[in-house]
C-alpha cells in the first residue's frame, strides 16, 4: 500500500506517513469500530480498542508491505490488542467448550422460543428483547470463541481469513465457530422471547 521513496527528506517523509495514516483511518475506522464494538459489547471499551488498534497501525505502517489485505492486517492488530487489553482488565475467563454439553436433554431445548415466523431477520431483530438476548449470549462466550463467531458470522470473513487473523488453521477455526454457535443457540433457547416491540423504522438501535 505504501511506496518507499529513497532519499526522501525526513519532513516530507513524515508528511507522507501522516497522509497515509489519514487515508487508512478514514477508510477503516468504521469497520474497526464495528468489530471492536462486537468484541467488547459496549461503546467506551470499543473506542479504547479502536484507538489502540490505530496507534499500533500508525507505528507499523512503515513495515506493512501489502502482503495481506489492509482490512485483514487491521483485524489482526485489533484482535491482538483486544487480547492484551482483556488480560490487563482481567475480563471474561477463557475456558473450553465441549460438544457434549450442547446435546439437548429435554424437549424444550431443541427449539428457539422466538417469534420469527414470517419475519425477515431484520424485522425479528427490531425486537429489543431479542437484540439484548443475542448480545448477552455472545458476550457470555469465552473470548476466543466470541472472536471466531464475530469474525466469521458477524463480520462475514471466510474461515481462512479468520485463521490468518487468529493464528489458527481452518479446522480449528471451524471447531471454535461450531461450539460458539451451539453456545449462543443454547442461550437463546433457554430464553422465551415474547415481546415484539420497536416495530417501526429507525428503531434498530443497540
Amino acid at each position, binding site marked *: 500500500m505504501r511506496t518507499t521513496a529513497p532519499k526522501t527528506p525526513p519532513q516530507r517523509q513524515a508528511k507522507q506517513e501522516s497522509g497515509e495514516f489519514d487515508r487508512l*483511518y478514514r477508510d477503516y*475506522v468504521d469497520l474497526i469500530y464495528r468489530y471492536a464494538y462486537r468484541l467488547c459489547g459496549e461503546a467506551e471499551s470499543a473506542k479504547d480498542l479502536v484507538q489502540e488498534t490505530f496507534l499500533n497501525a500508525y507505528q507499523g505502517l512503515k513495515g506493512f508491505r501489502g502482503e495481506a489485505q489492509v482490512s485483514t492486517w487491521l483485524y489482526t492488530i485489533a484482535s491482538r490488542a483486544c487480547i492484551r487489553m482483556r488480560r490487563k482488565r482481567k475480563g471474561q475467563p477463557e475456558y473450553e467448550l465441549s460438544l457434549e454439553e450442547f446435546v439437548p436433554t429435554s424437549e424444550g431445548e431443541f*427449539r428457539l422460543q422466538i417469534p420469527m415466523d414470517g419475519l425477515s*431477520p431484520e424485522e425479528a431483530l427490531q425486537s429489543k428483547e*431479542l437484540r439484548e438476548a443475542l448480545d448477552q449470549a455472545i458476550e457470555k462466550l469465552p473470548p476466543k470463541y466470541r472472536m471466531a463467531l464475530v469474525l466469521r458470522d*458477524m463480520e462475514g470473513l471466510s474461515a481462512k481469513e479468520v485463521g490468518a487473523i487468529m493464528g489458527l488453521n481452518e479446522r480449528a477455526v471451524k471447531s471454535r465457530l461450531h461450539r460458539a454457535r451451539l453456545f449462543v443457540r443454547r442461550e*437463546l433457547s433457554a430464553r422465551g422471547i415474547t415481546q415484539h416491540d420497536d416495530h417501526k423504522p429507525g428503531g434498530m438501535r443497540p
Partner: protein
Amino acid sequence: MTKKKTSAPKKGAGPSSHSHANDQGHCVNLLRQLSAYIDDELPSDICQEIRRHLGACPNCEVFIASLQQTVTLCRHRPAPQLTSDDRMNMRRAILNEANAR
C-alpha cells in the same frame, strides 16, 4: 440372476453406517457436523445421509432449524456507528499519543 453380496455394517465407519431408530449416537454424530452442513462444506453423500436422518428425527430437524436461525440472527445483527465527533476526537487522541511516544 446373481445376488450381490452384502456385508454387515462396520462399527464406526462414519455416518452412513448407522441406521436411524431414535439412535442417540447418530444424533450426537450429527450435532458435530451441523455447522459444516449449514455452511455447505460437506460432501454430497454425507448431506444426503443427514437429510435422511432429519426426515426421520423431528428433534434433530427442529434443532438444526434453531441453529440456522441463530446464525442468521448473528449475520443480521446491526452494529452501532460512530458519530463524526467520535471519529475526529479519536483521531486526535491517536496522533497525540503517537507523537508523545
